[in-house]
């Protein structure tokens, strides 16, 4: 029973994941064709640079000014302020440009029914973690051990692999739990679902209850009773009646109360996300820190790194809040439609969970190119 249901579930999740990816792909190309960034396409002649080009040129400018400013700060104390302003601006622009960190965090927030407030906290925590990682790497490798650039880049590479593997593992876990919710939502409207999928349901439920502490909170009695049934009975109809009600409730929920957010499981999971993303430092920060150290201005480099992180956090938090609000809006809208609403929301969550997994796997195997580590 356990084996078959596990396999059936893996199969169902795999098929659903493939469908989500295909649907996503076609929707993206359809939407992009007419409406990039939600605004009307400007003219026939594409602007040289555009928003992205402007962002690129700006952050390059700020970044290049950093080395001369650190040099200047050696003799002129006021240059430190300039350095902080540049670092802050660079952080904001750097994060507004490409980067997998905010993509992973936003996807996680959407997948996991998180609040905007929590999105902001996670964004700042991951940026802080990233800054800390950079300072620790340079502090240990360069300052304490006086290691060469080659050794340092080796360490960076190792950390990079660990980070991507963690993102992939984190994504896999999200897909597993969200896949259960999605499969249940799929079955919910059907009175007699396929046997294979039905067999998977009791296991899903246990996993689900475990993962959504706020659901557990409100439904704890039902879940405990239900789990008791799981081993002895094959009473599928009972399962489904229960699941249906459960999903309806999700569709109408008003988001978790603050007290529920503070639950131990919730924050621990959030920490998993920020650790997976934040453990890999930004190559730019490493370069700035090593440069500052060589100039005898390590403290200025550290300050610049944390200010850079602050700028990054602001941008990431903004994107995270947009993602969470968009999903909230979707939930409110879909709550109005009968039955299908829960299915759509579970589908969105499942899709977002799938994105986290895709990022992790893609980064790990080099399908998605992330910022390179500085190994030359």
């Amino acid at each position, binding site marked *: 029973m356990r084996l078959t249901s596990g396999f059936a579930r893996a199969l169902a999740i795999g098929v659903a994941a493939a469908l989500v990816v295909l649907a*996503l792909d076609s*929707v*993206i190309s359809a*939407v*992009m064709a007419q409406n*990039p*960034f939600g605004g009307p396409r400007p003219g026939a002649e*594409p602007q*040289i*640079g*555009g*928003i*992205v080009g402007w962002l*690129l040129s700006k*952050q*390059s400018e700020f*970044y*290049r000014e*950093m*080395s001369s400013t650190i040099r200047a700060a050696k003799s002129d104390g006021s240059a430190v302020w300039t350095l902080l302003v540049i670092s802050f601006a660079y952080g904001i622009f*750097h994060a507004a*440009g*490409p*980067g*997998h960190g*905010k*993509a992973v965090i*936003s996807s996680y927030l*959407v997948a996991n029914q998180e609040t905007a407030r929590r999105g902001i906290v996670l964004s700042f925590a991951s940026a802080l973690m990233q800054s800390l990682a950079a300072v620790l790497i340079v502090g240990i490798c*360069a300052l304490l051990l006086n*290691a*060469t*650039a*080659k050794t*340092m880049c080796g360490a960076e590479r190792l950390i990079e692999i660990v980070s991507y593997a963690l993102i992939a593992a984190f994504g896999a876990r999200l897909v597993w739990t969200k896949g259960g919710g999605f499969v249940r939502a799929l079955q919910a409207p059907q009175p007699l679902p396929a046997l294979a999928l039905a067999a998977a349901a009791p296991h899903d439920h246990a996993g689900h209850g475990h993962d959504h502490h706020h659901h557990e909170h409100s439904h704890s009695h039902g879940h405990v009773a239900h789990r008791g049934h799981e081993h002895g009975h094959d009473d599928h109809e009972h399962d489904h009646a229960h699941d249906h009600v459960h999903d309806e409730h999700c569709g109408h929920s008003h988001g978790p109360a603050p007290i529920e957010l503070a639950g131990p499981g919730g924050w621990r999971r959030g920490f998993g996300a920020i650790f997976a993303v934040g453990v890999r430092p930004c*190559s730019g920060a490493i*370069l700035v820190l*090593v*440069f500052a150290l*060589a100039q005898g201005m390590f403290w200025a480099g550290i300050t610049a790194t944390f200010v850079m992180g602050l700028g990054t956090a602001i941008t990431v938090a903004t*994107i995270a809040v947009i993602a969470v609000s*968009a999903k909230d809006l*979707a939930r409110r*809208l*879909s709550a109005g*439609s009968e039955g*299908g609403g829960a299915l*759509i929301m579970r589908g*969105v969550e499942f*899709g977002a969970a799938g994105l986290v997994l*895709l990022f992790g796997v893609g*980064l790990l195997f080099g399908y*998605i*190119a*992330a*910022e*390179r580590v*500085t*190994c*030359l």
Partner: protein
Amino acid sequence: MNIAMRRLLGLLLLAGSWALGAGAAQAHPHVWITATSELIYAPDGSITGVRHAWTFDDMFSTYALQGLETKTKGVYSREELAPLAQTNVESLKEFAFFTFAKADGKKEKFQEPVDYFLEYKDAALTLHFTLPLKAPVKPKELALEVFDPSYFIDFQLDDKTPIKLVGAPASCQLKIQRPNDGTATAQKLSEQNFLSGDNSNYGAMFANKITVDCP
């Protein structure tokens, strides 16, 4: 499903795809290189290889010199820099030395680099190395591009001596396209190709293209 919701889902997916596309095209430079390149000709007028002199920006130069012990502080001899030069050329191999040559439209391959060394001057490191072609070519048109496809490194051809033809037949004409002088159409960086997520050729928009016509 009503229209508002459909639109919203589209927006959600767009946001996701932006994030994904952004993840795919991680692109802004952290290292700047000012390049001077020489095309080396054999007496019979065929091209045998490319000789590069790449000067790194001061931030990267400092980073590369981290942890390097020298006899005199702040002075780095060619011998002291030899292990670093070795590391450099070994690492560059992974990126095909950022050097892409086409002889009459056909891609040419390079051998392992020779005569490589580093030089430290004015707080900047310059890497010298020669890339011999697998086999000498004598094309009507040779196209040489120097760029990093993922745009982690920004290549600028030197202002004064961007490229030299060493021993080339007198009839050969040299043309240079820089990424920032408006001649390269490739620099048109639109959201569309940024979002395509295809990182493989992103840096080509910032490529330096050199063409030599020898009729």
